[in-house]
């Protein structure tokens, strides 16, 4: 197990390398010089000033050289300096990363609690109105643009009812609406998977055996069925996390939830490449680690799954 985990962690290296190379390729292709953008729409400083700025950011050397230098600094843990604020990228990301994680895990918590309950309920009460309603809600969630939903949530809960704040990421109270927005939508996917997985398991031989033995239904569900039903659910959870990390930027922008996604979008628009690179590295590493965690959870859930 440990060997497996170590081997997977080693895979981090080529993945990160690949990601960084891709980002650098993009820099080469995409038009837009960060120094130009800083002075767009204003008086342009004289050449000496611009040259000095280029030197400061290492933009005065050729792209391949920049690439090598960057790889070297990443190994040392230095992600460069933001072109816009001149602060270390690590500091900029550190300030916001925990917010993005909070949002991702918060939404995940909502999704798990709501989704699993809905799924189990629908499976247990199969083919009754409860089942149909649950599945209709699930359909709604899959089809609802998160962005629109977020606006409606703000409209109802913040502006009209004034129960919750509109924006910001200061307190846990600020987390409620954005987490609900993403979480409720994600819960629907989970609900469907849980339901079908539970149905499979419930009709399996060993469950019928347990019922024949006279075990209480509730015990059956919780102890036997659920553990096995969770396997596909865990898969989807892993993928959801990736989606939540990457795709939550729209929600971050709408709710002014100051996370890494909001910063990344601004950085892209301003061609603040050091920041973009830093965010990409951090997100990629997180994603790989989460997948590793998911795989390890599998073997905990199902002893039949063994990794060499």
């Amino acid at each position, binding site marked *: 197990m440990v060997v497996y985990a170590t081997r997977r962690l080693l*895979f981090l290296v*080529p*993945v990160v390398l*690949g*990601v960084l190379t*891709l*980002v650098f*390729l*993009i820099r080469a*292709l*995409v*038009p837009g010089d960060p120094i130009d953008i800083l002075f767009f729409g204003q008086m342009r400083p004289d050449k000496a000033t611009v040259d000095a700025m280029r030197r400061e950011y290492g933009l005065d050397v050729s792209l391949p050289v920049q690439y090598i230098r960057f790889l070297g600094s990443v190994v040392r843990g230095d992600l460069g300096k933001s072109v816009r604020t001149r602060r270390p990228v690590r500091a900029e990301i550190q300030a916001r990363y925990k917010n993005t994680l909070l949002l991702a895990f918060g*939404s995940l918590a909502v999704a798990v609690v709501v989704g699993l309950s809905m799924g189990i309920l629908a499976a247990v009460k199969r083919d009754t109105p409860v089942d149909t309603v649950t599945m209709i809600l699930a*359909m*709604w969630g*899959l*089809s*609802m*643009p*998160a*962005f*629109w939903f977020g*606006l409606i949530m703000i*409209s109802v809960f913040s*502006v009209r009812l004034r129960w919750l704040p509109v924006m910001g990421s200061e307190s846990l109270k600020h987390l409620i609406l954005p987490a609900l927005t*993403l979480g409720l939508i*994600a819960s629907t*996917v989970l609900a469907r*998977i849980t339901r*079908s997985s539970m149905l499979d398991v419930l009709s399996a031989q060993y469950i019928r055996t347990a019922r024949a033995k006279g075990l209480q239904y509730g015990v059956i569900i919780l102890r036997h069925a659920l553990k*096995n039903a969770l*396997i*596909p659910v865990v*898969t*989807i959870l892993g*993928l*959801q996390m*990736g*989606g939540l990390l*990457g*795709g*939550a*930027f*729209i929600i971050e*922008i*709408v709710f002014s939830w100051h996370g890494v996604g909001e910063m*990344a*979008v601004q950085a*892209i*628009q301003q061609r603040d490449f050091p920041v*973009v690179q830093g965010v*990409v590295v951090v*997100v*990629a590493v997180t*994603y*790989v680690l989460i997948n590793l965690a998911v*795989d390890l959870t599998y073997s905990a859930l*199902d002893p*039949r*799954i063994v990794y060499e």
Partner: protein
Amino acid sequence: MSDAVAGSSTRGRPIKAAVSIDERVRPRRSFLKPLFRKRPAQIGGGIILLLVLCAISAPFISPYDPYRIITSDRLKPPSAQHWLGTDDLGRDQLSRIIHGTRTTLSIGIISVGIAMAIGVPIGVFSGYYGGRVDLLVMRWIDIMLAFPYILLALAIVATLGPNLRNAMIAIGISSVPGWARLVRGNVLAVKGNDYVTAARALGASDGRVMFAHVLPNTLSSAVVLATLQYPAAVLAAAALSFVGLGAQPPSPEWGALLVGARDWIWTASWLVNYPGVAIFLTILAFNLFGNALRDTLDPTLRDL
């Protein structure tokens, strides 16, 4: 977006502890009848049909010219003259939404088409040949999946030029890894089947085996994934519009309409709600239809 359904596959992870590969069968020719007996397929299919009709007949059924600017008619709420109200330049919203049907449909077709055209062959080659090629392809897929798609989309759009067509290409290319992985999984499953071994024993070339035997068996999952990936493509296009990289004015693409109206939600909510409803119904239709399709063709694909 967080729709994990799109572009996902089970990464070769076990979904059920014991599933017999041979239970997967080729799609029966007669799958259409049982398909349309299901209610979701009827509803979904009906909406899709409606959308296609709208797209085809857009110039004829629109009450107004969707591009006509009449500054004195700005921001009118829904009324008898303008069923869905007017936007901030006085253009009739109903006409714009009808014309937007064309764009919405083509988004799905083009991006999913590109993703399939590139992803399926990669998956087939990778799964069939196995070995080092397969390993390399899987690592590449891991890298691509770890890469935030908006960055990829930006790169492609900024290089080619910011317009809707390039946005669709960008979305298509970002979906390739998901497709490759799914197809590869299927190919791996089918590779060991008897009829494949038989064909090769009979001397069929690799290419023929791949295209005549392996590929058709991945068809069902491919079709299902296509219908289910469509919504993700539509949402991704809207997200790109959000950042200014999608449809350019005065295109009535629904995502652009929705995003462009976001500041008006309190003063002119009809500008946000109707495009939102249109997107919602479209996505819903494809999800319903895709689910029904999947249930008919191959219930073991429930993990999609």
